């Protein structure tokens, strides 16, 4: 068996609840986040943003701003050389408008000045002449043939003829004969669902500090989920070689996918280049809402056929997502994930992206999946109600399992859905009594998980301690889990290891911290790097003992002879080998680089109890339990934390969070006052049950856990709502006015 693959073992460090290495800094205020960096001679950068949803920029006059004392640079799109079509082109266009302002809050110019006050005054002195165009912010409006066209040139050739040129991407997945499947069904239900755009809502606004020298070398400090991707984009936009731009990721104050791309970084670099001074830009909260990337809003039609004993005969989903003024693949992920929890003979999903005058969407935790699965899980729930079947039993009956050909193509290996459902079924929550106006909802959730390009370096210090260098910003405790896996593999205590996240120029490439990939892929690379170091340590012992390299093995932190034939030598500890290393060939290190595969998909099941005030439509979440397969929970506290945090975000999405646009195309709730994320008193205790069905693709069986937990709450809350108010709602968020309206409509 290859060492790549899962091997059962008794863990000593993995699975413990150790204190995180960055903990002290974070409870004392010392941790350095994006806005916490200061540099000598630093200028303050500020953006001027379009107040119009859609407008041609006829001219920009920056002369008055430039003339203001203390202003050191002004930047517009004209300062950036146009790029060829592609990601970087779209990212730059989203960062700063070139010909048209495409959404309310789209940056059109920026200044760098010696103080915040001067920068603000300078921004006001920039004169922009706009020609206001008709705008469109809603999916169905944007698809009409007479809709204002946001951007030309993105239409996929498969887009149906009855849709406007705002329709861009088109994807289709599935297998089997869907129509024949519906024929076989005893009950077919088709419904339309809508979800509002939501924002990741990280508490730390985007911030960066850029420094460009006249020699063409640059340094960039920013809060990001992926410094290497920031470097790649910024280098392209700045027309500089990647080697000359060093990007350092600050501590990150939440990301959830929203910090996988850039919004202000190239502007800061350009301002720095023009002024010859370091430039810091910190977004305001209003800018975060208006001009970073929320997730998509959606309209989804779902049709499911079921036999009267609960077997699903066919599933069909038709998704239309809007993610702002630029094309994106979120509907691709939605179309793939919609029916992933089910073992289906016939399934078809189509996803279409629609351009609107809204900010360019960014990833948000399991991008595309929550809204698609909400629609499917709602219809499954309704069918169970209709047929008088237990919703959990029906899920079990149809659950995807090892060998299932997934709705999006691949055949599943070992997966944890059935175990997770069984755990929910056995849990006291599932059969606890409910009172009047209360309801219980259930939903499955899924995320693909991801591996990706990863580099890790592991150094054995002369004193027998270990340094691990990785390149993925730690958004939820990953430095702890990486240290734990290094300690586990090396057979040394956790506190002998320190893991740091390094800059782009100190380690090989690492993909963005996304796709729930870090504990899996960086963990895998760390284990492999440790194994490389172990190999070397064994070789050093072989040299000292003068025996064959193959005759030395590693066990529990010691090198020792492989067996009696190898010779009788006292085992040597890591510390002893490290101490001798200057005399046995020099420093010992291990490193590993991989484009990791085998991430192993993740499933979760959520149970949610709510109570609705029938006179006001107010919803209180009474009880919530999350069941999820973690493969192997490296640090259970942070696995639970992911499950709880994802559930909380999903509950917010289900009940109150939404982007609200006015008729003028402007965002009306660009602040935490009216973009209503759950506060502490909104939520009950969120119970967690971790299942461990090992991922065959990881040495310790680890699966990513971060994204799946945001998927089920949408349908779990909605299904609970259907029971609590006796009628089903088809739109998120289920804010009180909508709930009260549904209650009154049901009363007739």
């Amino acid at each position, binding site marked *: 068996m290859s060492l790549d693959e899962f091997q059962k073992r008794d863990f000593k460090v993995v699975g413990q609840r150790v204190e995180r290495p960055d903990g002290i800094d974070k409870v004392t205020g010392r941790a350095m986040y994006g806005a916490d960096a200061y540099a000598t001679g630093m200028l303050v950068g500020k953006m001027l943003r379009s107040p119009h949803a859609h407008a041609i920029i006829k001219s920009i006059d920056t002369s008055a701003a430039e003339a203001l004392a203390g202003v050191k640079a002004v930047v517009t799109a004209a300062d950036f050389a146009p790029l060829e079509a592609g990601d970087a082109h779209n990212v730059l266009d989203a960062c700063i408008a070139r010909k048209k302002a495409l959404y309310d809050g789209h940056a059109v110019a920026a200044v760098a000045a010696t103080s915040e006050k001067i920068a603000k005054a300078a921004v006001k002195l920039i004169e922009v002449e706009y020609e206001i165009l008709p705008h469109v912010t809603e999916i169905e409006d944007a698809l009409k043939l007479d809709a204002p066209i946001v951007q030309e040139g993105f239409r996929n050739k498969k887009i149906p003829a009855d849709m406007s040129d705002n329709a861009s991407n088109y994807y289709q997945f599935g297998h089997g004969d869907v129509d024949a499947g519906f024929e076989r069904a005893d009950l077919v239900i088709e419904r339309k669902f809508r979800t509002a755009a939501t924002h990741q809502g990280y508490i730390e606004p985007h911030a960066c500090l850029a420094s460009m020298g006249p020699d063409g070398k640059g340094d960039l400090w920013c809060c990001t989920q992926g410094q290497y991707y920031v470097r790649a984009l910024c280098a392209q936009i700045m027309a500089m070689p990647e080697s000359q731009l060093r990007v350092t990721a600050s501590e990150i104050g939440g990301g959830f996918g929203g910090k996988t791309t850039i919004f202000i970084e190239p502007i800061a670099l350009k301002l720095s280049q023009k002024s010859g001074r370091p430039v810091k830009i910190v977004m305001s909260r209003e800018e975060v809402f208006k001009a970073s990337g929320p997730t998509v809003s959606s309209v989804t039609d779902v049709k499911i056929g079921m036999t009267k004993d609960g077997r699903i005969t066919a599933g069909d989903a038709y998704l239309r997502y809007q993610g702002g003024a630029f094309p994106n693949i979120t509907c691709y992920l939605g179309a793939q994930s919609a029916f992933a929890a089910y073992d289906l003979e016939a399934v078809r999903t189509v996803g279409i992206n629609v351009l609107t005058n809204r900010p360019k969407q960014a990833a948000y935790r399991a991008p595309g999946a929550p809204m698609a699965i909400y629609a499917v899980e709602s219809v499954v729930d309704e069918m169970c109600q209709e047929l008088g079947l237990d919703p959990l039993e029906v899920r079990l009956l149809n659950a995807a399992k090892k060998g299932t050909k997934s709705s999006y193509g691949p055949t599943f290996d070992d997966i944890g859905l059935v175990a997770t459902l069984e755990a929910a079924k056995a849990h006291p929550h599932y059969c606890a009594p409910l009172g009047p106006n209360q309801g219980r909802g259930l939903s499955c959730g899924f995320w693909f998980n991801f591996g990706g390009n990863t580099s890790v370096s592991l150094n054995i210090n002369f004193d027998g301690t270990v340094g691990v260098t990785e390149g993925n910003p730690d958004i939820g405790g990953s430095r702890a889990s990486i240290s734990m896996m290094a300690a586990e593999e090396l057979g040394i205590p956790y506190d002998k290891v320190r893991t740091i996240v390094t800059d782009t120029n100190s380690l090989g490439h690492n993909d963005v911290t996304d796709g729930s990939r870090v504990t899996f892929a960086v963990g895998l690379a760390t284990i492999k790097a440790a194994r490389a170091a172990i190999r070397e340590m064994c070789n050093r012992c072989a040299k000292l003992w003068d025996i064959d390299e193959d005759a030395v093995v590693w066990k529990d932190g010691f090198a020792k002879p492989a067996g009696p034939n190898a010779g009788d030598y006292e085992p040597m500890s890591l510390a002893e080998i490290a101490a001798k290393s200057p005399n046995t060939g020099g420093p010992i290190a291990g490193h590993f680089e991989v484009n990791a595969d085998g991430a192993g998909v993740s499933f979760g099941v959520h149970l949610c109890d709510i109570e609705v005030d029938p006179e006001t439509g107010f919803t209180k979440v009474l009880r919530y339990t999350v069941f999820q397969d973690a493969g192997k929970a490296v640090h259970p506290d942070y696995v639970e934390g992911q499950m709880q945090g994802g559930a909380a975000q999903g509950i917010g999405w289900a009940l109150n969070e939404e982007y609200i646009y006015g008729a003028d195309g402007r965002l009306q709730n660009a602040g935490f006052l009216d973009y209503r994320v759950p*506060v502490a008193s909104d939520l009950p205790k969120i119970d967690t049950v971790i299942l461990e069905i090992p991922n065959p693709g990881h040495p310790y069986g680890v699966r990513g856990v971060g994204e799946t937990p945001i998927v089920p709450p949408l349908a779990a809350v909605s299904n609970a709502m259907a029971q609590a108010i006796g009628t089903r709602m088809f739109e998120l968020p289920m804010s009180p006015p909508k709930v009260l309206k549904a209650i009154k409509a049901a009363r007739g």
Partner: protein
Amino acid sequence: MRYTAPSTTAEAVNLLASNPDGARILAGGTDLLVQLRAGIIAPELLIDIKHINGLRDIVAEDGGLRIGAAVSGAELGEHEAARALWPGVVEAAELIGSTQVQGRCTIVGNLCNASPAADSVPAMVAAGAIARVIGPNGSRDCAVGEIPVAPGRNSLAPGEFITSILLPARVEHASDAYLRFIPRTEMDIAVCSAGVSLKLDKSGICVAARVALGAVAPTVLLVEEAADALIGTTLDEAALADLANACAQASAPIDDKRGTVEFRTEVVGVLAKRAALIAKARALGETS
């Protein structure tokens, strides 16, 4: 912009009067600083009144309480006598913002900001609270309900500001309550709200009532028909239904990001009913 912290009301009045367009009073600042930052206002001068003698005090007066303009929500909430006398007003004041905002916000600021959704205002109007206004021509007293005239606009003349609010004395078998609706449990602006103050006779029949509604009109509404629905009743179901009806009739709300006309019109009556029952229970000494 300049900042000044006068130590007397006379000084503050002078400063205010000599900068008729460009001066703003700063007490708790929880609205003012937000508006400054958003660029909604750009005053030349901020007059911090927290250092003026007496403005941070709560003092007994004619059986009632005089609340200084710089008394924070948290300080009011910690004042046992205020809680006992006007529990509805105090609970309303305590709903202004988070714990952090409570540490700074004032009921006078809440009033002068003139938001139709201000939490403390319906409760104060129901309580018949009186604002003491000082200005170049001396001081005057004014019913709280006359201060806001439109969203974001108050009736204070140039050079005037409010130094205190008098919560009047209360007779026996009387009490008040305030309820608001928000989508979350905290941190939201009222979608609609109701303050009810009432007096019962010995047999438990309502003999006087004031019902004030928030966020269903450009300013807080004092609804006489709603009060009439309660007077002469024991707050039985029919009376409460009449109350809710009267509230709905009087409401003229708008659709906005926080709620719909339909929702506000319906829910404001629900809140009024519930607040009336709480006020009644308090008046009967059943709850505090």
